[in-house]
């Protein structure tokens, strides 16, 4: 479109405003997204002025990937339906996995309990009351073998939400596959392994930043050599958003973390194209429909541009931002939980329209407890309905060209670029973490949102408007306290029955490696194979690496 066309549209729009809108009252003083970003009443082609189709949008599967990372997107293959799941012990969770696979789920995603996430064995004092509560308890290779019993690890892909001790759980998975006779080259899946967002938002860290970053780059290197189909990191905005950030903050902080990992890999001497194609991302799907779609589209474009232009990656796979999405847990309401089915469906739809590679849809009861089988089935069915009934998979990036979506995509990119500058001015991601920059930005945004809820500028149905006093009437999954007792017993038995000389030996070698510069993963794998527990391995590493402590702020 030529410049005088835009001028004509703007002139016509002004006349239309004078002619039709003067005197018309609006319902609200201002209209904003859930992230408090102002939205205009109308968008026109003039809002896309300066946008160049080929350079800014292009074609699916090609740079800058704004319209999607694959040429045929969901016409070729649907997104992976991957419900995050784990509770109790490995036996219980193994049954749930088999159930989900029978129901048509196409990938697994492991939720670990808090002691596993924090690197404590189930019989550690700090694990008391937490074993198997918000995920499955895994203490050693023995538990991992049970978790995937009769599930062929060369046929499915598995995502594991594990960060501080990611290397250990990954090694357990590799070793469990060995026991099934499957070599590591055949394994596909993802470990979250994103420690930066732990410091920023999710707050389950173990070691300080420097050794944590080394563990991560060691994983990149090992993965490239021996587990080439594995996504060695899932750089996550999900938790940043759950902690209360805005959409732009989620986008900016996540990509900034991504660039920090790229730089760390390069500083460790790795060729960028040897590890960047295995970097993957994980975003939140919150309630504000269009804002979320624009966020995913902007993420792909920013990543591609930086990877190609700034970091000079030459393999197109290094430019592609592939991502998993989970609907927003923080948007679920304890009041009238059935309404959460509706919220989740809209959120999931934004992820699909935004071109996600895999999706977890929350179950309606997750605001109350871990989901029941019925609630999980409804959540999975929500995805199947989107995939097969409502026609949104027929064409690629169907909202492209919407004046509003394109403008919003540009604005998301601009907002993220502003944050990148501020982070750079502060001295980079690690310094910004140490100074509490991200933490304070997120705390401010979440407090502002809370105030808007209390002032009713933002509405949540059933919570601050349209409330009812009906008691909630849904079944809740209960974790039997007996699970904890049994798991403690299991890990005690393991310690008695394994070859403890081998365990001591491998742990000693591991400590020596931690103090040196060798890639540490083979040493962890060595300890895992002889049934050293997670807590023992973490303990050995803590002796060398130390522990991270946060300065609390609010």
């Amino acid at each position, binding site marked *: 479109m030529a410049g005088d066309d835009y001028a004509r549209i703007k002139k016509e729009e002004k006349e239309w405003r004078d002619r039709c809108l003067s005197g018309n009252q609006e319902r609200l003083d201002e209209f904003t997204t859930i992230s408090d970003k102002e939205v205009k009443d109308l968008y026109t082609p003039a809002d896309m002025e300066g946008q160049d189709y080929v350079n800014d949008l292009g074609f699916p599967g090609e740079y800058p990937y704004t319209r999607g990372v694959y040429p045929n997107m969901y016409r070729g293959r649907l997104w992976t339906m991957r419900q995050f799941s784990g509770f109790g012990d490995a036996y219980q969770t193994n049954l749930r996995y088999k159930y989900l696979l029978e129901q048509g789920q196409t990938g697994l995603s492991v939720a670990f309990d*808090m*002691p596993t*996430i*924090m690197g*404590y064995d189930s019989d550690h004092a*700090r*694990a*008391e*009351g*937490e074993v198997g*509560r*918000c995920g499955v308890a895994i203490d050693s290779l023995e538990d991992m073998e049970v978790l995937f019993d009769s599930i062929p690890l060369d046929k499915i892909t598995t995502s594991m939400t594990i960060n501080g001790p990611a290397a250990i759980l990954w090694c357990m998975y590799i070793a469990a596959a060995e026991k099934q006779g499957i070599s590591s080259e055949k394994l596909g899946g993802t470990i979250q392994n994103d420690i930066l967002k*732990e410091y920023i938002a*999710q*707050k*389950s860290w173990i070691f300080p930043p420097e050794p944590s970053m080394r563990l991560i780059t060691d994983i990149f290197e090992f993965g490239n050599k021996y587990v080439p189909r594995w996504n060695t990191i899932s750089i996550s905005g999900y938790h940043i958003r*759950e*902690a*209360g950030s805005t959409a732009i903050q989620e986008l900016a902080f996540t990509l900034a973390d991504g660039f920090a990992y790229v730089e760390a890999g390069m500083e460790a001497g790795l060729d960028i194209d040897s590890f960047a194609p295995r970097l993957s991302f994980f975003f939140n799907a919150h309630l504000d429909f269009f804002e979320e779609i624009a966020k995913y589209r902007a993420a792909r474009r920013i990543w591609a541009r930086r990877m190609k232009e700034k970091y000079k990656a030459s393999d197109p796979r290094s430019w592609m931002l592939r991502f998993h999405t989970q609907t927003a847990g*923080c948007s679920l*309401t*304890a*009041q009238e939980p059935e309404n959460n089915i509706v919220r989740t469906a809209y959120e999931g739809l934004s992820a699909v329209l935004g071109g996600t590679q895999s999706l977890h849809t929350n179950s309606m009861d997750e*605001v*109350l*407890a*871990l989901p029941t089988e019925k609630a999980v089935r409804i959540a999975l069915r929500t995805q199947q309905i989107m995939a097969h009934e409502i026609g949104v998979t027929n064409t690629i990036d169907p909202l492209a060209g919407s004046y509003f979506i394109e403008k919003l995509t540009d604005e998301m990119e601009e907002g993220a670029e502003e944050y990148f500058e501020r982070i750079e001015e502060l001295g980079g991601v690690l310094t910004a973490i140490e100074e509490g920059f991200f933490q304070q930005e997120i*705390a401010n945004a*979440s*407090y502002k949102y*809370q105030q808007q*809820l*209390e002032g009713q500028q933002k509405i*949540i149905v059933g*919570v*601050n408007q349209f409330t009812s006093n009906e008691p*909630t009437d849904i079944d*809740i999954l*209960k*974790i039997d*306290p007996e699970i904890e007792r049994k798991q403690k017993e299991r890990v005690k038995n393991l310690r008695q029955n394994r070859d403890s000389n081998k365990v001591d030996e491998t742990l000693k070698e591991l400590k020596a490696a931690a103090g040196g510069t060798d890639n540490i993963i083979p040493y962890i794998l060595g300890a895992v194979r002889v049934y050293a527990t997670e807590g023992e391995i973490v303990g050995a590493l803590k002796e060398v690496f130390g522990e991270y402590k*946060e*300065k*609390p*702020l*609010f």
Partner: protein
Amino acid sequence: MEERKIRVLVAKPGLDGHDRGAKVVARGLRDAGMEVIYTGLHQTPEQVVEAALQEDVDVVGLSILSGAHMTLVPRIKNLLRENDAEDILLILGGIIPEDDIAELKQNEYVTEVFSPGTPIEEMANFIRDSISNRAR
């Protein structure tokens, strides 16, 4: 004489790192005129009680989203009792199923449990009322 501000310890016992609720509540109660101390993450029950005694607080607000509340809350209450600090108002927020709320309240481990979506004003009023009833 100026009235002493209500002193509140906002605490995160257990291993979970979900601190959004704790932080929002801490700030909201401070804005409501209370003196608020936040423990930070990953506290043991002993650390929580020690902080409560040291800071001489009127209220301890616990935030737990990991499902460990049935272990952690009774332990904290018992430690308060052992230290003759039973008069400290103990309240709880987080992901707490209704049956557990009933059990915790019935056994007098907590005075009140606030579910997600509770306005901070409601919590602040509850705290003020409880403290002033006690003073009488």
